[in-house]
């Protein structure tokens, strides 16, 4: 017989962890806020410095909005990046909206063009999944859709 689990709600401190573990450490992000406020904490919104992105965008700051709910058997999440300067949008969703694409899908919209496909992550820890997609956004997705 194993020791009983101490229990508790895995969502209690999750947004503070995602902020501390990931978003606060990204040099291109200048602010991270709880939406609508710290008390209700429905989502996190990170604001990028458009000049620090490579290639640079602007003048408006792009944002990354994180909505995450820990549940069994799989977490529900939607992470959405929007660049208001170009209208580019990218989303990583684990929300059962497209079951034909598997558990998780990536989608983007730019200049009237939309792409959507299933994805896998290497990790199952929320903070490390968020790192995977932030790395992907900055190293591949943003440069691909903002050619010099």
């Amino acid at each position, binding site marked *: *017989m*194993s*020791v009983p*689990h*101490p*229990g*508790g*709600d*895995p*969502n*209690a*401190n*999750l947004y*503070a*962890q995602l902020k501390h*573990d990931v978003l606060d*450490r*990204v040099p291109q992000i200048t602010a991270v806020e709880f939406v609508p*406020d*710290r*008390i*209700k*904490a*429905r989502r996190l919104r990170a604001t990028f410095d458009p000049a620090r992105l490579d290639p640079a965008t602007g003048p408006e700051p792009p944002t990354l909005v994180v909505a995450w*709910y*820990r*549940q*069994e058997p799989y977490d529900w999440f939607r992470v959405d990046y929007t660049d208001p300067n170009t209208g580019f949008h990218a989303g*990583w969703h684990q929300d*059962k909206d497209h079951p034909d*694409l*598997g*558990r*998780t899908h*990536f989608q983007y919209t730019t200049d009237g063009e939309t*792409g959507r*496909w*299933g*994805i*896998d*992550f*290497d*990790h*199952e*820890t*929320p*903070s*490390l999944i968020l*790192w*995977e*997609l*932030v*790395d*992907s*956004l*900055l*190293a*591949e*997705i943003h440069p*691909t859709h903002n050619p010099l």
Partner: protein
Amino acid sequence: MEVASHLPCMATDDSQGEPTLRDRETTGEDRVRMVAHQLSEPRTANWIAAEAEWSHEPTTRVLERLVDDGVLYRDDSGPHTTYYPDYRRQAMIEATRLRDGDHTVEELTDRLAEMKSQISDWQDEFGVDSPNELRSTVADDGVDAAAAERRREIAREWDRLRGRIRIVGFAVREWDFLAPTTESPEARG
């Protein structure tokens, strides 16, 4: 069945060994702590080391420290030692942060009332008392696909709101107990 894509969606490029931003901005210990705080089931040190992409020995040292600090529970009763976080402690930390934040107890009380009122609106709209009851209505006659999806979304938000109400309610009830110390012990005499 999942469909894996190799189009640009994942950045970790192990084949080229180039450090990602994550590799530059986190240490192995940081990542072990992240994993340890967010485990969804008891896991061995080996599993946690692999997830954190760090070596076994330092991972175990960090895990043992987290056990000593009350962050993790260790279970030695099975064939392998496993670790699991104490999520109650995380709820306490969250309540303490709300107490230490910029909001007044009146603001917390107002938000609490708004969250409760939202739940009560859903109870009235759907004639149910709980998120699971609402989920059980998605197959009812007259509920089309869009309405079913809306009900599922509301049920999840309802679950989330109930958790939030417990934490904010705790912070309000224990407002004085959770008050930060602003004077030195000598000054309080």
